[in-house]
C-alpha cells in the first residue's frame, strides 16, 4: 500500500544516505524471503500429504512424505522475518504508535516531542538489540540446538533477530538525526495517511 522509498535530503552525504536505505531495503527483502520460504515449506508438506493420500486411495503404499522439523524451521524463519523487517517497517510508517498528541501540538512542540520519541525509542531498541545479541551469543557458546529430528543451531535465527534489532536501532538514530536537522520524519506522510485518513 505504501511504497518504501528512501528519504532524500540535501544535507546528507549521498553515499551514506543511499547505503542506509539499501541496508533497510535489503533487510526487508530478506524478511520477505523468509516468509516465502515458510509458505513453500508448508506448501511442500501439504502437497506431499496430498500425494500420500491419493496413493492410499488407489491402494498403493504411500511414500510417507514429511518435511522433517517443519514446525521448528517455520518458527525460526518467522522469528528472523519478524525482526529483520523492523527497520523497513519503521521507514514505511507501518509501526503503530499514538500520534494524537503529536498531531495536536504546534510545530515547535511537535519537533521536541518527535525528538524525545525517536531518542527514547532508539535507546530502548539499542537495549533490546544488545540483550538479543547476548542471548544469541550464549546459545552459540552452549551449542543450543532446536528440538526435533533435524537439529539446527538456535543461534542462527537468534542472531538474525539481534541483527534486525540492530538495524532498527540504526534506523531510529537515522531518523533522530534527520529530525534534529529540522526535517520531518521520513514516514510522516504515510503515518498521517494511516492515522488521519489523509491517503490519496
Amino acid at each position, binding site marked *: *500500500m*505504501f*511504497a*518504501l522509498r528512501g528519504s532524500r535530503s540535501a544535507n546528507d552525504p549521498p553515499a551514506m544516505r543511499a547505503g542506509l536505505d539499501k541496508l533497510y531495503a535489503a533487510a*526487508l527483502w530478506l*524478511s*520477505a524471503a523468509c*516468509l*516465502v520460504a*515458510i*509458505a513453500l515449506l*508448508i*506448501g511442500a*508438506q*501439504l502437497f506431499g500429504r496430498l500425494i500420500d493420500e491419493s496413493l492410499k486411495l488407489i491402494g498403493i503404499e504411500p511414500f510417507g512424505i514429511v518435511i522433517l522439523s517443519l*514446525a521448528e524451521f*517455520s*518458527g*525460526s524463519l*518467522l*522469528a528472523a*522475518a*519478524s*525482526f529483520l*523487517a*523492523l527497520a*523497513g*517497517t*519503521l521507514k514505511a510508517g*507501518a*509501526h*503503530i*504508535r*499514538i*500520534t*494524537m*498528541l503529536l498531531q495536536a501540538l504546534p510545530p515547535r512542540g511537535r519537533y521536541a*516531542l*518527535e525528538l*524525545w*520519541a525517536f531518542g*527514547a*525509542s532508539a535507546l*530502548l*531498541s539499542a*537495549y*533490546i538489540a*544488545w*540483550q*538479543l545479541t*547476548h*542471548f544469541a551469543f550464549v546459545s552459540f557458546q552452549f551449542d543450543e540446538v532446536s528440538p526435533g529430528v533435524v537439529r539446527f543451531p538456535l543461534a542462527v535465527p*537468534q542472531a538474525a*533477530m539481534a541483527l534486525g534489532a540492530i538495524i532498527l536501532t540504526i534506523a531510529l538514530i537515522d531518523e533522530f538525526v534527520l529530525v534534529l536537522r529540522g526535517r520531518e520524519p521520513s514516514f510522516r506522510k504515510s503515518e498521517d495517511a*494511516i*492515522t*488521519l*485518513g*489523509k*491517503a490519496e
Partner: protein
Amino acid sequence: MSIVALSLLLIAILLLILASGIWIALGLAAIGLVAMAVTVSTPPGPALAASMWQASNSWDLTALPMFILMGEILYRTKLSEDMFEALAPWMQRLPGRLLHVNVVGCGIFAAVSGSSAATCATIGRISLPELRQRGYDQSMAIGTLAGSGTLGLLIPPSIIMIVYATATDQSIARLFIAGVMPGIMLIVLFMGYIALWALINKERMPPAEPSVPLKQRIAASRRLIPVTLLIAGVIGSIYGGLASATEAAVVGVALSIVLSWGTGTLTRDNFRDALLGATRTSCMIAFILAGAAFLTTAMGFTGIPRNLAEWISRLGLTQWQLLTALTAFYIVLGCFLDGISMVVLTTSIIIPLVEKAGFDLIWFGIYVVLVVEMAQITPPVGFNLYVLQSLTGRNIFAIARDTIPFFVLMCVAVALIAAFPGIALWLPSTMLDR
C-alpha cells in the same frame, strides 16, 4: 512499594510513554523493564530476550503473515467489483435494497481477510460511489459500511484472533470457528436494522430499480464462485480438521494467487506490493507481540494480575456485573487505542481475573473481538473511521455519528453472546479434532 502504588506508578508511566509517541511495541517493553526493575533484583535483560524469542519463534504464529498475505493479494484483485455486480440484483427485493450489499459484501470479504480496515476499504471503494450515484442516503451508506467492515475481525480468518490466541495460548482453529456464528448473528442484526430503517424512512430511499430477471441474476452470481470456493477451502479445512490454521492459510495464499492470476491482476508490481505490505504488517504485529510477551513475564514478577484477580473476586461481582464493567472499560480504552494494542495490553493483566471468574477463554476471545470491533468505530482513534474518511473526505466525528446505530447493535450482540454463550461455543464443540 505496595502493589496499589506500583500499579498506579506503572499506569502513569504507561500513559506517559504511549501518549508521547513512542512506538507501542517498544513502550510495552519499557513498562516491563520498569516493572521488573522496581520489584525484583534479577536483571531484566535475559528475561526480555528469552520472552521475545519465545513469542517470535512460534509455529502457530506463522498463520499471521500467511493470512495477511492472502488478504493483501485479494485486495489487489477485482473481487470488490465482482461482489457488487453479483450481490446487487439479489438485494433489490429486500427493504433497504442495495444497502444490504455493504453488509453481505463485507461478510463475504471478511471470510477471506483478517482485517476490518481492509474489509471496509475493499467493499467501500466500489459500493460507496455506486450507492451515491443511485441516490441512497449517505449517512446510512457510510454507517452500514463502517459497521459491517468490523466483521473482518469476527469472521475467520482474523488477525486479532491470532493475536489473542497466541497471547493466551488458545487454539487459533477453535477461536476461528467460534467466530462464525456470532459473525452471522451480527450480519442478521445489521440487515434487520437496515430493513426496519428502510420501512420507516420510505421517503429517504431512492425509487426502486426494475428487477433483474432470475436468469441474469444467476449469471451474475457466477462471478462469486471463485471466492466461495476459496472460503470453503480455507474455513472448511480448518473446521474439518484437515489442516491447521497455518496450513489453511498457505492453501489460502495459493488459491488467492490462482484467483488473482485467473482474473489477470497478478502483475509483478501487484505481487511485490502485496508481499512487502504483508511483510511489514506482520512485522508490526509480531513486534508488538514480542514486547507484550516480555510485559506479561514482567507482570508475573510484580504479582499485579494475581492480586487484581483476587481483589475482583473478593468484591463478589456477578458475571454480568463484571462483564458490564469490562465492556465499559474496553469502550473507553477503544477510543484511544487500536485493537491489537488493546488485546495484548489487557491479556497480560486481565486473563487471570477472567479465568478466576469462570469464563471460558475461547468465549472470552469472541467477547474481546466484539468489543475491539466497537473500538474500530469509536472516535478519535478508530481505524474504520480513518478508512471511511479517506474514501468519503468527511470528518471522522461526522462518520462516527452515522455509525451510532451499528455501535448500539454491537452492544446488543455482546449482550446476546453473554446471555447465550452457545452462540460462540457450539460450533467449535462439533469440530473434528486433529
